[in-house]
Each structure stands twice: as C-alpha cells, then as structure tokens.
C-alpha cells in the first residue's frame, strides 16, 4: 500500500530508535503526550514503545472522541433511539460505549431500537432518502477531522430537501482540550503530569492546519510536533521532540508535511464556520466542563438539530466512582492505578470509555502494556523452551 507500507518499515524503525537512544540525554526523563487516540492505537498496535529508550515515555492523551464522550450524552442518544420513529445512525466505535446502568447502543438495539452502524454520513443521508417515513438521526462525534463530514451531510440534506434528517451533535475541538491538560496540573498531579511536549494529531491538523498549536509552544513553552499516522511518523516526531527539548526550543513543527499545511483545509474550515457555533461549555469525560470546547448547530440550521427537534435533555450521569478514566485521560494516572482495571473492567466488560475504545489508554495497556509488564516480571521464564 503506497504511502502506508514505507512508513511501517522495520529497518528504518531500528535506525530511528538508535538515533533517539543516542540523542536522548541519559540524565533526564522525557515525557511526551500523544494527544490523538489514533496515535495511541498506532503506538500500541506496532509496539512502538519497545523501540524507545527507558527514559523516553509516552503519556496517552484524551484525543479519543469516544473516550471523552460523557455518559449523559450516550444516555441522550439511547433515549433518542428508543423513540419508535427514530433510526439512529452511528459510527461503529460508539456501539459499545457504556451509558448509565450498563446501557449501550448495542444493548438498546437488542431491545428493539432501530440503531444502524454506518461508515459515513453519506450512508445516513442515503438511509434518510430511502426511508422518508423514518426520522433519521446521525449521532455525530469527533474532533475536527470528523466535523466537516457532518457539515457536508447537513449541506446534502439541505440540497436534497430532506425533512427527516438531523444531527445529534457532540463535536469537540482539539486546542481547548490541550489547553485544559496544560492548565489542569495542580499540586497533586504535578509530577505525574509533566508533559513536556506533544505529538500533535495527524488528521485534525489536515483540517485546522498548524497555527492553532502555536499558543502551546509560545505561551506554555511546550514543543508540538504534528505527526503522521504511521509508526515511523510517530517515531520521527518523537525524535524531533527530543531534539527540541535538548536544544531548549519550543516550537510547532510539522512532521506530516505530505498532508498537513500551515493553514489547513480552508473549505472544511469555511463549512464548519458556517454551520456550527461554539457551545459556551460542554462536558468532557475526565476533563470536566470546558468552556468554548464543543460545537452545536447554529440557529439557522435548527431543524437539523436533533436536540431541538426531539426536545432532548441533558440528564447528568455519574461515572462509576471507582473508574479512573478521568485521571487517565488527563494523563495523571495510569490504567494500572485503576482498581477496576483487568478485574471488573476488561475489554469484554468495559466500565469506562478508556477500555471500550481501541484508542483508549486502558485498552491500549491491555493489549500492549500487560505484555511489557509480563516481560519485565519473568524474562527468564519466557525463553525456556
């Protein structure tokens, strides 16, 4: 696969790993956060941390829209889907996210709700056209990569004069979340939260460009390197971060030059600006209520807004008190620190969103971290044949 395989090359990986090991100052620790859940998944899937020296560690960030979706919003989607007129369309990632009392879209579907998994908003529009007597609601989540497809779905609904299509909008924004992480370090979490630099999201950046990250480099003094999606991209970005730290720089650098430009995708930005406005505040699992961090439809597009169309209300929901997803999403705790991890909370029986999503820190640790722990615990035993 062109533009894929070359960036997964194991030989090049060994080379970069050696360079990182050589250039990382053995006298200090480097803590970098990969913000984007897709990067978390790539790091776990390819075992990238195995190639890093001991003193370069990755903290998994909250850039996983499934992980940060609060229970109350999942409950809202389920309530909407229970309306017999409604056909709720959702991306596959959302089907098993736990709502309150162990509910989920998958379970609601088993109970009779018309919930359909789709690959794209294009499919939801097609369903609305094909089934005019159904109220088709698209459960929209995602950061800035996924927001333009939702915007275009609304354009398509307008153009086709669809009277039965609406969006349940849960789109969130990346820069406010990064800011929240940097501002949230208090005395108690200060040590755990020593994020010294960010591996910036790949595809969010194709949309928003590199400019929005400048504030983090300039005002907060944290280097940001935007990285492509493949493991070699992430490895190279980590090397670039190590170099920035060593050289005392804090800049925004772009490793993903083949797809990301400084200004980003202007057409996508224009569509988003036209259709959406910023919510005053929005709840993020783990980060609390953040101002100006999420989107809703503008009044002019009210009839495509499922919350208004169906009078949906936000009913506050509490996470399982023992679930540490919040602290884990901030990077303040590790999955192992959560009492539920591995016993009550497993990929088969997820208690929180960090375990449901393959990008969540807990899911990544289950797949990858336990392996490293086991290897450390019994290196001899493994080699006995």
């Amino acid at each position: 696969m062109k533009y894929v395989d070359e960036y997964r090359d194991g030989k090049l990986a060994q080379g970069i790993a050696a360079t990182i090991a050589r250039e990382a100052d053995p006298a200090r620790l480097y803590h970098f956060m990969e913000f984007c859940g897709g990067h978390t998944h790539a790091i776990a899937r390819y075992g990238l941390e195995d190639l890093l020296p001991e003193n370069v560690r990755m903290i998994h960030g909250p850039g996983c829209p499934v992980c940060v979706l609060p229970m109350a919003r999942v409950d809202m989607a389920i309530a909407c889907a229970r309306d017999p007129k409604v056909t709720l369309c959702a991306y596959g990632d959302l089907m098993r996210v736990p709502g309150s009392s162990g509910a989920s879209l998958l379970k609601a579907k088993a109970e009779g709700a018309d919930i359909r998994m789709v690959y794209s908003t294009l499919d939801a529009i097609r369903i609305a056209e094909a089934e005019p007597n159904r109220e088709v609601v698209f459960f929209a989540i995602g950061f800035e990569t996924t927001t333009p497809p939702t915007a275009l779905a609304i354009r398509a609904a307008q153009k086709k004069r669809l009277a039965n299509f609406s969006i349940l909008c849960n789109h969130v924004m990346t820069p406010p979340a990064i800011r929240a992480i940097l501002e949230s370090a208090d005395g108690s979490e200060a040590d755990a939260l020593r994020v010294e630099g960010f591996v910036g999201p790949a595809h969010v950046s194709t949309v928003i460009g590199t400019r929005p990250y400048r504030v983090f480099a300039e005002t907060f003094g944290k280097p940001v390197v935007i990285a492509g999606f493949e493991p070699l991209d992430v490895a190279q970005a980590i090397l670039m971060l190590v170099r920035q730290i060593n050289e005392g720089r804090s800049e925004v650098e772009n490793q993903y030059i083949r797809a990301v430009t400084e200004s980003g995708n202007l057409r996508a930005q224009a569509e988003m600006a036209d259709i959406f406005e910023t919510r005053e505040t929005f709840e993020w699992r783990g980060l609390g209520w953040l101002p100006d961090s999420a989107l809703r439809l503008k009044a002019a597009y009210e009839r495509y807004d499922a919350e208004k169309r169906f009078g949906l209300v936000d009913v506050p929901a509490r996470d399982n008190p023992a679930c540490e997803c919040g602290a884990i999403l901030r990077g303040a705790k590790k999955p192992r620190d959560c009492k539920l991890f591995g016993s009550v909370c497993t990929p088969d029986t997820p208690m929180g969103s960090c375990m449901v999503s393959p990008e969540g820190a807990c899911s990544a640790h289950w797949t990858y971290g336990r392996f490293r722990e086991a290897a450390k615990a019994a290196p001899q035993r493994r080699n006995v044949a």
Partner: protein
Amino acid sequence: MSLQQPIRRKLDLKNGRVDLSHGAGGRAMGQLIEDIFHAAFDNDWLRAGNDQSAFAAPAGRMVMTTDAYVVTPIFFPGGDIGSLAVHGTINDIAMAGARPLYLSASFIIEEGFALADLKRVAASMGEASRAAGVPIITGDTKVVERGKADGVFISTTGIGVAPAGLSLSSDAARPGDLVALSGTIGDHGVAVMSKRENLEFETQILSDSAALHGLVAAIMAAGGAGVRVMRDPTRGGLAATLNELAHQSGVGFEIEEEAIPVRSEVAAACEFLGLDPLNVANEGKLVAVLAPEVADAVLAAMKAHPLGLDAALIGRAVADDNRFVQMRTAFGGGRIVDWLSGEQLPRIC
C-alpha cells in the same frame, strides 16, 4: 374407469416463494424436498425417502460434530450459506484428524424466501458435498413465519472416523512446538463484510470457504504423531484460535507478524474499515501445532497441496503462565494478540 391423477404442478422456481404449506408435512413439503433438496443432493439414501438413514459403523473411533449457519448475506463472493455449511462441518471433523463420512442438513426457512434462492443454495451444497466426497444422507425442513428466520438457517451434523490411537487434542501443545498456518487470513470475513449493508466495497476478494480434509490427510501422513493439534480459525480469526489453544494447553505463543500471509487486498480492506486481519474469520484455513521434528516435512506437504500453497510457519509455543499470545510486529515492537471483545465493528478512530 380409472381416477384422474391430480396434475402435479411444478414448483415455480423462477418467481415462487416458500410459504407455510411447504413446512406443513403435506404434499407441498414433499414436493419441495424432492424438487429442491433431493434433486441437488441426489444419493441412494435420500432416494429411499426415509426420515433417517443407516450406514455400517466404520472401524476406528467415531467423531461427530454439529454446526449452525446463519451467515448474512446468504450469497457472498466465493460462496454461500450452503457451501459454507458443507465445508464448515467437514472441517470440524477433519480438525480432529478424522475422515469425514456423512452429513445431515436441516433447514429452517423463512416464509417468503425465494425458491430460486433456495434452489441455488441447495445446488451449491450438492456441488460442495460431491466435490468433497461426503454425501448429505438425511435432513429436515421447517418453515417459520416471516421475520422469524433471516432467509434460511442451516443446521448440520457431521460424522467421521478417526484411526484408533489418534490423540489430537487442544491441550496437547507444548513449549517448543511450532505453529503452521495453511494460508492467507481474513479473506472470508472481508468478502462477507464487503457485501453487508452500509459497507459496500467493490473488490475481488473471495471467501476462502473450502473443505480441508484432503489437506489434513496430507498433514497427518507427513507428521503422524508429531501433529499435536489442528484448528480452523473461523469466527474471531487467528487471534481467537491461538488464544483458545494457549488457554487449553497452558502455554504461550510467540508469533511473527511478517510470517503471517495476508493478501494485499484484504489488508487494504481492513485498513478501510479499521480492522485487524488477525480478528477476521476464515473458512478454508487451518492452524497446526507441530512437534519441531516434523515441522519441515509437514510444511512441505502443506505447500504441495492446492489448499496450502501459501502455508507458513508463523511462530512457536513457549512456556508462559500468563498464556499470552505475543507477536513481534513487522515494525519491530511487541504486542499481545488478544481475543476481540464482542462483535467486530469497523472503526473511525
């Protein structure tokens, strides 16, 4: 004066549909069974028209398996529910090192199912059964109301015979054993998913659905008692099979990602959907755990067989109390290959 015989109308195989009378036990059902199933499976047992069929008990240990097939869509690139049912049941028998002898097939058909489709399924089963040399010797038909079955469900039983003294067993893997895989993974699952609603891909990927008893015979001839266990990685894919064997045998596995054959189109389809080929179903592949001294001979025998051309050694069993299946990625790092939780769903993230 002789009584007029009622005119036996032919089934409208072009436009007709199954209705409740076809399951009621009367003439309509008899006609359905004869014109569709007996016509397709044609053998002496079925021609005798009994509710059961008898055969001489073969020498050796009897092996029996049962399976149900509910795949959607019913017709997919490279196969259909019928051929899948024949191959899958034969394979369950074959994985025990046994020779498959007979099959039974029971049909639960939804009211409204097109007769043309039923005929197509039956024809496909008949062909698969003949090609494999394993006849369908008895069956049953039921019709349920619209909405109570997804088109058609097929339930099967397979009977086979294993030589006395054969000890293939899922708890037989030992540290040091080698793991062989008979060919490319992910073909079936991707072929089926490509047709499912909302996931339309135009691909040339065909299901790998196949009867493996010939390949198994070649493996057993080459490896004998050095073949510890075989299993076909169906639902849950290679990941599920390796984890099952690890747990049942109390060992770990170490596998090499680079050694696992995957067609580039299957890899590409998995990229589109955010799936891992390790979790995708296969219907014409097997995993064999082998004593090290027979591995080379068995691999050669597999590669010489039409269903094992891409066979490869992909790893080995190791001592591991955690029973992890560990994989060295092509990138050079390591990770655990776990069972997938729940239904495999395509991702956006």
